[in-house]
């Protein structure tokens, strides 16, 4: 009974997409056609793939809520220096070890620093590192994966062995070793970001490779090649747009992993260093204050978890939006 429902859902899934009556999009819209896409031959306004994905995402309530919270949190942390009275490096002589109040939203520490300002500063660093790592790692991963999957042969062999090698070396330990080099340099968040990105591209590479391996056998790629398109054109204009869904989803999850890694490095004392701060560093610094001044320890941690939870929920919503058929048996 339940199985019948499944089969029906699968059968009807492609039909629900009015833009794709059995013809893959890149083939239906070959190069150079900018206009005339508004109406299909059926006389119905065409919905682009992007519009469909957006619609499905907006209807995903949890993911939308997560996105809204995420945007608010990001805005708060980036704008905090402009609307909040205290700066993260300001020390008050009088307000020492105060509990959360209307003046000090998250309280203060033993040298009179404002916890809310510190947490916002830490969240800014986390978001900066997370987004940039995702950008760099996705670029490297897609490049490696696309080259390996498109050209196969010896290039594929070499690139995938290198990827495997990066996966077998215990990543956190190696990160610690490399990050140790930048420990003492102040304003070191950029080098920390690059180090994390150097060990975050492997899954993206594997994923893109497997997408490209299956895409290159598809008819629309074959026909593009028959029409004389160059390799670069086939990869960039025909294959990449079709692999974009899984690339974006994985990039979102990379943001979460990067934030997690950065905070772990900073917690262990090998990430973002002293004059500056990070959520992981705050948790480490105030670990022993947990029982006497709970706000110092719990506020940075809860903020960090909320941040990670939202990023993961957005990623999950994007996955559903890009591939609604997965929904039935999705993890």
């Amino acid at each position, binding site marked *: 009974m339940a199985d019948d429902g499944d089969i029906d859902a699968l059968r009807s899934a492609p039909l629900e997409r009015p833009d794709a009556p059995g013809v893959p999009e890149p083939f239906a819209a070959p190069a150079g056609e900018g206009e005339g896409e508004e109406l299909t031959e059926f006389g119905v306004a065409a919905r682009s793939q992007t519009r469909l994905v957006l619609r499905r995402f907006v209807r995903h309530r949890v993911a939308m809520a997560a996105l809204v919270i995420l945007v608010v949190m990001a805005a708060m942390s980036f704008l905090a220096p402009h609307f909040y009275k205290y700066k993260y490096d300001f020390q008050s002589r009088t307000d020492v070890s105060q509990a959360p109040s209307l003046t000090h939203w998250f309280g203060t520490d033993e040298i009179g620093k404002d916890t809310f300002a510190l947490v916002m500063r830490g969240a800014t660093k986390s978001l900066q590192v997370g987004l940039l790592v995702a950008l760099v790692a996705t670029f490297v991963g897609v490049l490696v994966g696309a080259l390996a999957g498109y050209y196969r042969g010896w290039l594929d062999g070499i690139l995938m062995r290198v990827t495997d090698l990066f996966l*077998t*070396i215990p990543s956190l330990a190696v990160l610690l070793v490399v990050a140790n080099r930048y420990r003492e340099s102040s304003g070191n968040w950029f080098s920390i970001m690059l180090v994390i990105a150097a060990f975050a591209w492997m899954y993206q590479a594997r994923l893109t490779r497997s997408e490209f391996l299956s895409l290159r056998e598809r008819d629309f790629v074959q026909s593009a090649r028959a029409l004389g398109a160059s390799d670069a054109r086939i990869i960039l204009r025909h294959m990449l747009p079709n692999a974009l869904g899984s690339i974006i989803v994985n990039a979102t999850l990379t943001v979460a992993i990067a934030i997690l890694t950065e905070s772990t490095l900073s917690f262990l004392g090998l990430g973002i260093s002293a004059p500056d701060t990070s959520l992981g560093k705050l948790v480490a610094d105030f670990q022993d204050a947990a029982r006497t001044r709970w706000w110092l320890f719990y506020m940075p941690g809860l903020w960090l*978890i909320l941040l990670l939870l939202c990023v993961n929920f957005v990623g999950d919503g994007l996955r559903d939006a890009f591939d609604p058929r997965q929904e039935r048996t999705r993890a």
Partner: protein
Amino acid sequence: MFGFILRRLAIAIPILFVASFVVFMLVATSGDPLAGLRAQPGVSAGTIKAREHELKLDQPLLQRYGNWVKGAVHGDFGESQHFHESVSTLLRRRLAVTLRLVLVATVIGVLIAIAIGVFSAVRQYSVFDYGSTALAFIFYSMPVFWLAAVLKDVGIRINRAVGHTIFFTFGERTPNLAKGLVGTWSDRIGHLILPSLTLILISVAGWSRYQRATMLEVLHTDYVRAARAKGLSEAQVLRRHALRNALIPVVTVVALDFSTVLGGAIVTETVFAWHGMGSLLIESLFERDTNVILGWLLVASAIVILFNLLADIYYGYLDPRIRRG
């Protein structure tokens, strides 16, 4: 099967050698063990030269690598500058502590993850399924260090409320304990509870989701439908047809995740002040104790490669297609 194992070994050993090369180059180029000495005022160039010669830093990089690998093959990783003992005895002692934590957490974690995953797949969209999904999401997003620190805080609060120590929150054993074999081991298990709970909660979050997805996939296959169609009881269908096939992939995931669990153990040990591999690595990094860092990374890579190898062999044993392909 024997040929398959040999083929896998023939891949694993070269990988280990390449990994050792990468590790050596990484460490050799990313920190100067004499930086502290150089920064000190009043240290003559001659002293630094002598130190360099003593640590063989004046030799070419490739030659240093060759010497190191030659020693490592015989189990000799050199001496630790900071701990003043041979790196191999140091690693052996620390590894025993860390492996105790990692293995206990992995075994218990896998069992719990399988149980949760299978049950929420069989009762898909039930209260249990939604509840475990929500919890998995929360723990999946939780940094290990935060969870460990919170559990430590809760443990200490409970200890204070009760008035005596229920949860050990410091170290891997009580120092200078003389209580015989039973006493020693119950003490060790007591110290294991909170750290392994940390690792279990985090790893179960990921693994149970994976187990659930696999089980759902199997439940929708034709052979399960065939088993139902021929009139087997639901229990028999689940146990003999579905579960058996659904247990295969999760083992690979667990083996591949070993490096992540090891990373989690580094953090957990730091929070609970264990004298294991984690604190060893971090201390050596701060002290720039090159020999220890090199030995640490090589041993850890070897363990990760070994676990991948075991997963491969296990998979090949269960699935003949992989063995022949």
